[in-house]
């Protein structure tokens, strides 16, 4: 009887693993199979044309804009906030409140961020549906990610580095940028890269704050669409699965590139500090 139960469970384990892998392979396979036909130099670097047959260069540019702007804002704030929490603050009520807020921000679904962005950045601050409004919304979304990963990597910096530096008459600030941040760099970088992934994958919040204009953005105050929003819209409005899948290929390649560069960079940095 026990053998039977064991075998049944073992069978279920194999089946589940098989199902998971199969279905996930299917998704990637499907996207490549459907979209590969459209991929060409012209498709990636060409201008968009509403009649079809055009490229997705404007969406790539928009996506890059949102990544760059939100990281320019979120990275310093996030790192410094983590530094405050881990290196400066007295562990007390204020820190607990800040931690609670950061954790809560992580749990909020992106559509709520979108709602907030649509009213606060778009309407109240009069930025309009624009790349900048979307980027500011995305900044709030990735801020907790950067704070958390930075804090985690600050935890790995040995306390003896801090003591050693302070005992040599260095200030906390000098200690921070000369010893602590360099040692924590691999972790911080992986946090930033995670954030890029999050920004690239985000759709709902961008949809409500950047709008859907399918043209090359004139400035960061123009409305525009990112790759994910484009993929969504061509499916929803035109049912153009092939186009959506082709955009999907570009997205997957970007995600892969991000992941590999993350692994590469952290390996390289680890080597550099521990050689």
């Amino acid at each position, binding site marked *: 009887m026990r053998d039977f139960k064991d075998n049944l469970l073992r069978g279920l384990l194999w089946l589940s693993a098989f199902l998971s892998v199969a279905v996930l392979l299917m998704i990637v396979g499907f996207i490549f199979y459907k979209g590969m036909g459209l991929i060409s130099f012209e498709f990636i670097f060409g201008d968009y044309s509403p009649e079809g047959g055009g490229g997705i260069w404007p969406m790539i540019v928009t996506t890059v804009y949102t990544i760059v702007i939100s990281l320019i804002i979120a990275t310093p704030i996030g790192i410094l906030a983590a530094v405050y929490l881990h290196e400066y603050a007295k562990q007390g009520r204020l820190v607990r409140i800040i931690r609670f807020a950061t954790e809560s921000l992580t749990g909020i679904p992106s559509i709520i961020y979108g709602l907030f962005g649509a009213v606060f950045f778009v309407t109240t601050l009069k930025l309009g549906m624009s790349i900048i409004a979307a980027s500011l919304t995305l900044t709030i979304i990735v801020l907790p990610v950067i704070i958390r990963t930075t804090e985690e990597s600050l935890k790995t910096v*040995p306390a003896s580095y801090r*003591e050693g530096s302070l005992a040599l008459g*260095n200030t906390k600030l000098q200690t921070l940028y000369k010893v602590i941040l360099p040692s924590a760099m691999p972790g911080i970088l992986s946090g930033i890269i995670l954030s890029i992934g999050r920004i690239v994958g985000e759709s709902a919040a961008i949809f409500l704050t950047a709008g859907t204009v399918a043209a090359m953005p004139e400035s960061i105050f123009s409305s525009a669409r990112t790759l994910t929003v484009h993929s969504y819209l061509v499916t929803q409005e035109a049912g153009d699965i092939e186009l959506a899948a082709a955009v999907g290929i570009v997205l997957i390649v970007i995600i892969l590139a991000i992941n590999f560069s993350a692994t590469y960079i952290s390996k390289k940095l680890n080597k550099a500090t521990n050689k």
Partner: protein
Amino acid sequence: MNRALKEHTKELVKQNETGKGISEMAQRGKGNAKIKVKDLNLFYGEKQALFGVSLDINEKEVTALIGPSGCGKSTFLRTLNRMNDLIDSVKITGDIIINDENIYTSSDVIKLRTKVGMVFQKPNLFPMSIYDNVAYGPRGQGIKNKKELDKIVEESLRGAAIWDEVKDRLKTSALGLSGGQQQRVCIARAIAMKPDVILMDEPTSALDPISTLKVEELITQMKEDFTIVIVTHNMQQAARISDKTAFFLNGEVVEYDETDNIFSTPKDQRTEDYVTGRFG
């Protein structure tokens, strides 16, 4: 009030009698009280860790702090360069006067730490080259001139008796050195700040016997230039290298005297029990 002060006064009187002026005496340095600690109490939150510690530490001598684990000797050492400031819950009462300045009423803790260097229990070099480690302190003080830095690094490494071992690999990572070498580079790093006082917190506890011997030799040489306060678990070490020894027990100084006296004719029964190995 305490023996050191009496001793000190006695010596001064003697010196005066033999015709040497006080000012001359001060210039020579040796034998002057460099650090004066008066009635020092330290609390970790509610818990008191040091009880009314008073002792004077003489200039250009090695003063050893001995006692069983948890007796407060390391805590005391860390009050001398205010490293305990890093812990939020620490409260301190009493006075510590170094170079005629009360270090807890003066707010310039940076200056204090440049004048009072520290070597830790485990070598704690940064993940940088040997050169950058030694130049770290001077650079923090704004010295950027390459020649000047080169000079400081060489002098400091020579001062820590490790120049010959590392001069060909100054630009390689300091973490590739052996433990004993790392600890001597840590000492060089402290010397590079040209401090008056160097605090050492069990500097040989992580080292093998040969490296320990080298560091001990170094310490005896260094007292020519520096006032050294060393915490040690190893009583033979205290006996070998120190001029004066303070015996700590449960946060109090039980006995403070010439090292020879502490080890040959201790006045307190507890000191005798400890140095003869009956407890601890």
